[in-house]
Structures are given as C-alpha cells and as structure tokens.
C-alpha cells in the first residue's frame, strides 16, 4: 500500500526514511506535540512550502528549467482565493471558485510564457520569467482598487475554519478542538495529497520523458518526443501546483499581500530550499522546506546569541548578526551547487551505498 502511495519511489536510504518519517509525524501531530500559536503557524507554513517547493522541483529538478516566475503563480492562486472570499463572502463555495479561477489563470499564464520563450534556451526562459514576474508584482501592488496594493487583502474565511467554531466542548490532550485545528488539518491533508500527486507525476512515463528531455533534449527530440510540448506541460503543471499552494496560504493566513506571496525574497527562498534539499528528488522539498523554515524561525535566535558572544570583535559580530542568516545560507547554497548538486537527499542516499 505504502509502495503504491509513494508511486514506487521510495526514499532509498534508512536515515532519510527515518528523518522523513519524523517530519511527517511531527507535522501530522503538530497541534498536539507543539502547542502554541507560533509553532502551529510554523507547521502550516512548512506544509504549504513543501507543496510550493516540490512544484518548483518538478520544473527545476525534473525538467531542468529555471523559472523566476514561480512566486507569480503562487500569488495568482493566493489572490484568486482571497479575491473570491472578499467578493462573495466567507463560504466554501467562494473558496472553490476562487481557487479554480486562480488555477486556470495561472495555467494560462504558464502556457503563454512557456510557448513564448521555451523554444529558445534555458537562459532565455529564466530571464523572461524574471522580468515578467517583477512586472507582475509591481502591477499587483499598484492595482490597489482590486488587490489592496502594498497593504494586501484582509478577509474572512468560513466560520468552520476559525477558532470561534467549537467542534468539541472539551479539550483533547490539552488542545482545543476548534476551527483553527480543522483549518490546520485542511492545510496538512491538502498538502499531503498534492505532494503524493506530484510524486505520481514524476514517476509516471511523462516524468521519465521529462528527465530524458532534461538530460539530453536533442536525443529526446530525435527519439520522437516533442521537447517543447513536454517542457510547456511541466511548466503548466508546476504553475497549477504553485497556485494551489497559494490558495492554501490564503485560507490559512486570512491575509494575502505582495510581501507574503509575490516578493523576490520568497522566490530566492524557494530556490534555496530546492537546492539545499536536493534537486530532482521530490523528498528534497520536504527536507529543504522544513530545514529552511525552522532556520528562518529559530536559527535567528541562535545567531543572536552568537552575535552577543562575539560583540567585542567588531567585524565578526556583524557577520553573525541575526539579520545576516541569509548570508550563510547563500554560502551553503553555492557550496551545495558545486559539491552536492543532489542536495541533502542525494548525500544521504550516497552514504548508504
């Protein structure tokens, strides 16, 4: 059963399986294991980013295409749901049509960009997506009549998903069973399903062809596969997945703004997560997102301690200031591209053999 669920693509390493199991169990039981608002926020963020990063891995790791427009699709999904919720009221129906509209628009955008620029070369696509995504982010923050501009949108979500909704009168293991918990499990199970679907995609014949195209486009074309068709389909699929992750974020946060969905910083975060976790291994997305977000949330405290400890050395203390954590992740990123391009997952798999 497990094998079917994972589409026959097992972690293939004992350590990796254990780590993954630990992450999945922690996320599944997060409300009970780590009570508190901050840790629940972190857990939900990890779930959403696992989907987002895995969908980027579909593009970068499996199709070998670098896109800088991934946050654009993420944002389209989030804004679709957010606009629907603010326009037609907090019902599940508005979530449904908002998400649907977001997915369709994201797919249409991805199709247009793909057909337009994937014919030429990988570098070209990277540059075009970078330009289009920045223009989109600026357009969204200026269209304040529709999107709330820089301030973003605040809206209400269905009452069943808010803390005001009590499911059981008593606490279970010291945790209130309320709408917030339901909301978390909506995020968790949706993320799990989306991840399994993506695992299925990359292990299907389509996914194999995609890898062939990545490794040698010329040969794949010669065998008779339409390279442009495979690349464009991969772009569209990953855009759809990113849009779905975006609507999960919109439902969870009850807020959608440019800084949480469209900014270049998030794009760079995704890039770091994919590469550090491991390109071309779906499990890398789980590890990358978990490690990165935990670091983002908790490493800064640790670096604050280090900065205090070295405060008498003028230059070093600047290097380990909490705000400089991205510097060290950047260095780690460069080193991983050089020395272990398949990331942590690849390392763990090599250790076994």
């Amino acid at each position, binding site marked *: 059963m497990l094998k079917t669920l994972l589409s026959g693509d097992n972690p293939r390493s004992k350590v990796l399986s254990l780590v993954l199991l630990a992450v999945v169990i922690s996320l599944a039981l997060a409300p009970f294991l780590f009570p508190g608002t901050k840790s629940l926020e972190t857990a939900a963020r990890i779930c959403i980013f696992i989907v987002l990063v895995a969908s980027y891995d579909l593009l*970068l790791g499996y199709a*070998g295409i*670098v896109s800088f427009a991934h946050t654009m699709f993420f944002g389209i999904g989030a804004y679709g749901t957010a606009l629907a919720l603010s326009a037609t009221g907090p019902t599940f129906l508005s979530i449904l049509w908002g998400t649907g509209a977001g997915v369709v628009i994201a797919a249409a955008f991805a199709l247009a960009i793909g057909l*337009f*620029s994937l*014919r*030429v*070369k*990988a*570098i*070209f696509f*990277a*540059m*075009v997506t*970078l*330009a*289009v995504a*920045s*223009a989109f982010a*600026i*357009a969204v923050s*200026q*269209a304040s009549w529709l999107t709330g501009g820089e301030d973003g949108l605040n809206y209400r979500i269905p009452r069943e998903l808010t803390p005001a909704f009590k499911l059981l009168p008593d606490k279970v293991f010291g945790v209130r069973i309320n709408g917030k918990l339901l909301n978390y499990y909506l995020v968790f199970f949706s993320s799990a399903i989306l991840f399994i679907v993506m695992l299925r995609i990359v292990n299907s014949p389509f996914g194999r062809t995609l890898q062939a195209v990545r490794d040698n486009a010329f040969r794949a074309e010669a065998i008779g596969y339409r390279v442009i068709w495979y690349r464009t389909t991969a772009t569209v699929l990953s855009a759809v997945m990113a849009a779905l992750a975006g609507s999960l974020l919109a439902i969870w946060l009850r807020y959608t703004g440019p800084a949480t969905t469209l900014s*270049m910083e998030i794009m*760079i975060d995704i*890039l770091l997560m994919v*590469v550090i976790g491991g390109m071309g291994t779906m499990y890398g997305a789980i590890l990358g997102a978990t490690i990165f977000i935990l670091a983002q949330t908790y490493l800064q405290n640790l670096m604050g301690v280090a900065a205090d400890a070295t405060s008498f050395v003028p230059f070093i203390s*600047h*290097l380990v200031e909490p*705000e*400089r954590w*991205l*510097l060290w*992740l*950047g*260095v780690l*990123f*460069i080193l991983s*591209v*050089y020395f272990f*391009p398949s990331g942590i997952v690849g390392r763990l798999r090599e250790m076994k053999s």
Partner: protein
Amino acid sequence: MSDTTIKPRIEKAPVLERITTALPIALVPVLAVLGFVAIGDPAAWLTLTVAGLAMGLMIFIMASGLTVVFGLMDVINFGHGAFISVGAFVGFSILIWLGGWTASSSVFLNLAAVFLAILVSMVATGLMGYAFERVIVMPVYGQHLKQILVTMGGLIVAQQLIHVFWGPDEIHVARPESLRGSIVIGEAAIEKYRLVAVGIGVALFLAMRHVLKSTKIGLLVRAGVENGEMVEALGYRIRRLFLIVFMVGSALAGLGGVMWGLYQETITAHMGSEIMVLVFIVVIIGGLGSVEGCFIGALLVGLLSNYTAFLAPKVALVSTIALMVIILMWRPQGLYPVVKAK
C-alpha cells in the same frame, strides 16, 4: 577561352535585405515621434526624451558587459546586479569622503570628485569581477542550469556582504553642486546631470564600438563570439580573453551603479537586482550577445519608460514587458542575434 579566369565577386546584399537589417535602428526615432504625438506638449516631450535617453544610456552601460560576456563565453551572470550595487556603494563612500570637494562651488573639484569616485568603484568592481569569475563562474562553464543557480547565490552573498560592510540602511548623497539644477531651453527644463549621463553613455558606446571594430582585442572578442574553438586553435587563450572581458563588464556595471546612484541620490543593497530586471529586458530585446542591439534596446526601454511614466504612471514597467513581447514576436531572437549556434 583564356580569359575565363575566376574573378572575385563581392556580393552585395540585396537592397531589401539591407533595409530589414537596418530597420531596428529606425525604431528609436519612430518611438520618439510616437511619444511626441502622444504627449503633444513639445517642452514636456523634450524633457522626457532627454530623461529617457539618460536612463537608457545608463542601462546600456550596465547591460553591455553582460551581453558581451554572454556572447563570448555563453555565460549569463545573474549576479551582475551585485556589481551595480557594490559600484554604487564604493562610489558613494568616496563621494562622502570627498564631501568638501562635492560641496564646493568649483566645477573642477566637483568633477574631480565624481571622476575619482567612478575610477575607484570601477577598479573595485573590476577586481570583484576577477574574484567572481575565478571562484563562482569558472567551475561551472558550459552548464547553464548551474550557472544560473550559482551566480544567483553569488548575488545573495554579495548583497548580504554589502549589509555587513555598509550597514542595512539606504545611503543618501546629494549630487555635487555643479551637477544640480537644470538648464532651461525654451520652456523645457533639462537636468544637467542627465546631459552628463547622456554624454558619458554616448562616449562609452563609441569607444566600445571602436575597440570591438578596430583593435586586435576587439577582433579576438568578435571572433570568439563567432567561433571560440577556432580562436583557441589559432593559439589565443580564450579563457584569459574572457576573464578580461568579464572584468571590464563588471567595471562597467560598477560605473553604471555610481551613475544610477547619483541619478537617484539614494542607494540600497537591492538596487542592483531591481535594475537587473530592466537590464535583462534590454539584453533580450537587443539579442543575446549583441552590443548594437543592446544599445538600441536600452534607448527604447529608457524612452518608453519615461513616456509611459508621464502618460500612464501605473503601467510603466508593464509597458517595457509589452515592448519585449512585441519585439520578440517580430524577431524571436532579439533585434540583432549574435549567438546563433551555441
């Protein structure tokens, strides 16, 4: 029958073909005329046109290095923006240090301060380009995917290092006395600094054309763009040539950074990556690897952004994307594609 010797015949391209090749050059005047029709007010149009040319030429300075580097070695440097930011920060440090010179009313001292700032920042970014090429780019020649990722990583690290050295806040520096204010022609007010920027940009373009078209190193660079292996087979070390081009390109980015910083009078560590969006659009419009195309593309982008900023401020950046889309529909490889086979 003896006079049937084969004479060399120099083929001239048919008129139509020559016109289509030269067509992109006409785009800039056409855009200027369209802008005139849309704006209607000659004074406003003149101000905007000069502003657009100044902006375009500054972008050209930053983009030219990137495009030649790509043409020569098939390396696209996503970290190019780091040189722009570092150049601006180094230049501004010098200007702050020479505060007495920039505040004095002597034109000579003002220009000397700016010149020194430009010189130091170009040397600094040139050296940084050397380090960047050796450490970041060299190990990943020929692998596009890794190049994009690694140079992006270099950009992140460089931006963070700027924060470490110069602190997290943006820096303001006023322009030197004699570059402030504007000249009034008729009813149009033209900022002096923009004229200086246009002057530097045009001079640089002419110098670059001269170097590329009529010096030996330019010949080697052009030959390298056309067929790198053949240049190597003839005994030239293309890697060394590439290193020089990379350093010059980085130094030009630094120059562009100082000029852009003086134009805005405010610099942040992120300014480089923000300008890079325009730089990429320009490089794509011009055709990867082409200096002339890059020049035309930069002017088009500069003019169009200023016209649309005046006519419809909300669509300024979107309009440049639209321009890119239109140009690519007309010529899918850009205006003057240089790199064909790679």
